[in-house]
């Protein structure tokens, strides 16, 4: 009985010693955070560590930054593997280009020429349509006008 108890104690002691040899998750987390502090634009990175597996979340400006964080995390002692769930924010779309009135007026005149009952005015990029048009012709006219990059088309046409 006594021997068995001692044996258990020994096994317990060994396992405690073994576990304590490995860096703790919290320490790994701190080490990773220190490692990535040097990476520019990586301040949004959120690190979680569980059983030596590091998980990265957060938004990055590009794939290179996201990859750099992963590389840095992998290099930290005690990290078994890295799960990179970081997202890359797409760049904002370029602003909408609106045609200048001069070019727009010329294009609008070409587009409405064959619709004799349609009158078009252009001011500040806005095309205002008055008069009347056949329903079947309306999409064709609108397609031609919207291809000219107006600010908007204000359609006040009477559709017949």
């Amino acid at each position, binding site marked *: 009985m006594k021997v068995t108890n001692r044996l258990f104690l020994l096994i317990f002691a060994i396992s405690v010693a073994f576990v304590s040899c490995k860096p703790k998750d919290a320490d790994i987390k701190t080490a990773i955070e220190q490692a990535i502090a040097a990476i520019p634009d990586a301040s949004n990175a959120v690190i979680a560590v569980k059983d030596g597996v590091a998980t990265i979340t957060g938004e990055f400006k590009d794939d290179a930054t996201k990859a750099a964080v992963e590389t840095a995390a992998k290099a930290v002692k005690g990290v078994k593997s890295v799960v990179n769930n970081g997202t890359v924010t797409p760049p904002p779309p370029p602003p909408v280009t609106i045609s200048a009135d001069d070019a727009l007026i010329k294009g609008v005149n070409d587009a409405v020429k064959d619709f004799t009952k349609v009158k078009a005015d252009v001011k500040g990029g806005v095309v205002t349509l008055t008069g009347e048009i056949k329903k079947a012709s309306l999409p064709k006219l609108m*397609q*031609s006008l919207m291809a000219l990059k107006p*600010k908007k*088309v*204000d359609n*006040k046409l009477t559709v017949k």
Partner: protein
Amino acid sequence: MAVQDKYKELIDAATAAGATDLQVREQDNVLYIDGTVSTGAAKDELWAIYDKIDPNFTSGDLVLNVNVTVDAAVTKVKVITESSNLNIRKGPGTDQPIVGKAAHHEIITLVNKSNDQWWLVRTNDGEEGYSYSRYLEPVTE
């Protein structure tokens, strides 16, 4: 974002149609959708959805600009005027002198379409000039 919600069906349809260079942007409460689809039918479908959401396009809150990819191999176009002849002009614009005409439903040669609205064409008589692209339909052989 409200305008995007209104035209969500249209945006989804454009994505589903495999539109390339698709850009959906909102500026001063107007939604701008630009993109290129592969067929005229896909373009017509998007316009039909637009007409369904905003009957007769009267709200003025969307500028829909859908182009159709024209295969580089296409060299022939059909004149799709309602019934009249199609003017062929010296330069791209209705202010340009008329240098020739193509008959309704005639098939003529497409020289280039470097200008979206005005395509450079050549008639079977060899007259070359610009015609309004709305009245030309690419013909695949």
